[in-house]
């Protein structure tokens, strides 16, 4: 870890100004990912702007029954919040399925969206990696890729996004708010990105992960109102029972009326470079009978695009089974 300067930000515009256009500066939130990456040499900032004291720690209801979540809300506070648990239970479950109690107390919503892949080549600076060192290659494609992407990957990168929270946010059409510098005098202006546009496709630029403008500060996430989200759940599969990243996960919400799927939300985790909204599956579900055959066909519709590598083909089966299992549980829950 190289030496770096440190400043505390007291307000949003000040934070954006302090970071400025310096490509070697980073915002420091909970630090659970950034400080780790600094220790292993993946991140080498010259300047940190500490945003943990910004007044962005609130969760507020919006008109119509949505929620606005501040960027520095911790994972723990998010998962414990009564309205999150009431209106978006899959979001609370997703957050609780991630990391550990200690890390959830530190990690923030903004940082969670921006966390980097846990690919073992990305986190080892002695190895090539197109995401960390563009143009150096992707050893995972020929090497260890049991937990790599089956959807939306490219020949340049097959890493998966590690977030659990993001999967639920993708299912619930979250909108990311940010503030960015506007003019030379420290003025800032706000912007918004729907979660569907927040993460860039991998293509040949795996190092460019989000559509945020340079120097932008995430200020919060807004969840639009959606009655279906109150009947939702998150199911995560991992190689030990807790404190491990997913090898596959599903966030789902289901509204069944008269035996047919009236409304549905479905997103996958640990299968792509971003939380994967399963829109093909949703299309296959809407209006169809809420039964196992429909669920299986919907899963297959989404997974038809899967391009597994030699060692991660199991994920196609796993995601198929997870979709059927979670939707079946939600249907039975609704029937009760």
């Amino acid at each position, binding site marked *: 870890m190289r030496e770096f300067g440190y400043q505390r930000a007291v307000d949003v515009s000040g934070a954006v100004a302090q970071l400025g256009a310096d490509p070697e500066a980073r915002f420091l939130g909970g630090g659970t990912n950034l400080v*780790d990456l600094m220790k*292993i040499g993946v991140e080498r900032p010259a300047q940190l702007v500490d945003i943990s004291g910004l007044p962005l720690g609130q969760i507020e209801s919006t008109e119509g029954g949505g929620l606005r979540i501040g960027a520095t809300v911790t994972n723990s506070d998010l*998962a414990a919040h009564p309205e999150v648990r*009431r209106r978006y239970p899959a979001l609370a479950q997703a957050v609780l399925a991630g990391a550990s109690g200690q890390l959830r107390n*530190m990690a923030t919503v903004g940082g969670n969206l921006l966390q980097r892949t846990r690919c073992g080549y990305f986190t080892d600076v002695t190895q090539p990696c197109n995401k960390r060192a563009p143009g150096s290659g992707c050893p995972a494609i020929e090497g260890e890729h049991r937990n790599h992407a089956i959807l939306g990957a490219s020949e340049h990168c097959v890493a998966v996004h590690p977030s659990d929270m993001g999967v639920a946010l993708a299912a619930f059409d979250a909108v990311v708010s940010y503030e960015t510098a506007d003019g030379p005098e420290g003025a800032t202006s706000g912007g918004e990105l729907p979660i569907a546009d927040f993460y860039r496709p991998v293509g040949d630029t795996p190092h460019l992960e989000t559509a945020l403008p340079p120097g932008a500060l995430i200020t919060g996430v807004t969840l639009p109102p959606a009655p279906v989200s109150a009947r939702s759940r998150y199911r995560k599969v991992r190689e030990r029972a807790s404190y491990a990243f997913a090898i596959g996960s599903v966030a789902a919400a289901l509204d069944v009326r008269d035996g047919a799927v009236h409304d549905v939300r479905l997103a996958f985790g640990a299968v792509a470079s971003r939380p994967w909204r399963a829109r093909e599956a949703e299309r296959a579900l809407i209006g169809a009978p809420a039964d196992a055959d429909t669920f299986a066909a919907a899963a297959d519709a989404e997974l038809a695009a899967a391009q597994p590598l030699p060692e991660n083909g199991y994920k196609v089966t796993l995601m198929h089974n997870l979709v059927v299992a979670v939707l079946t549980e939600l249907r039975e829950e609704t029937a009760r």
Partner: protein
Amino acid sequence: MDPSTSSAITLNINGEKHTLSVDHRTTLLDALRERLDLTGTKKGCDQGQCGACTVLLDGQRAVSCLQLAVSAEGRDITTIEGIAEGERLHPVQQAFLDLDGYQCGYCTPGQICSAVAMIEEHAAGWPSAVSDDLRPDAAPAPLTADEIRERMSGNLCRCGAYVQIVEAVTEAAAAGNKAGNRAGKAGKEAAA
């Protein structure tokens, strides 16, 4: 030290103020261990992957290896050295001792700090990944062995003392976790 890459800070640890100059790279863990001789907090992985360095920040458990010391200024820090009340062990400490909730003892300070805060989190109504019903109006889930196992999973124990750790936490939680508590954020919320 170069003022652009170091800062003079005051840390509030176990109720005492410590003023020191830190390299910005210094983690709270290293400041405790290498600068303040508070070596009860252990370094197991230095990457937030084991929980051995768990301390309480404003009453909440946190891994001190990923917390920069300079950023911890102004927060109430409680380490394992501050868990007991003088000579009287905290109920969690006593239960670990009585029920052999450890072997080599290296993960133990982190386990104990984690358990102290975890019992409060549960009392404040925080759900966990194994809680059946997350609805806010549902009855609070009892602190079963499965709840303890999940909530304590951020503290690895390589000796394999989990069974005894769960027994110790169960006993301490039943004893009320009263003595030695520095009222934390979760506790305050519960009281409010």
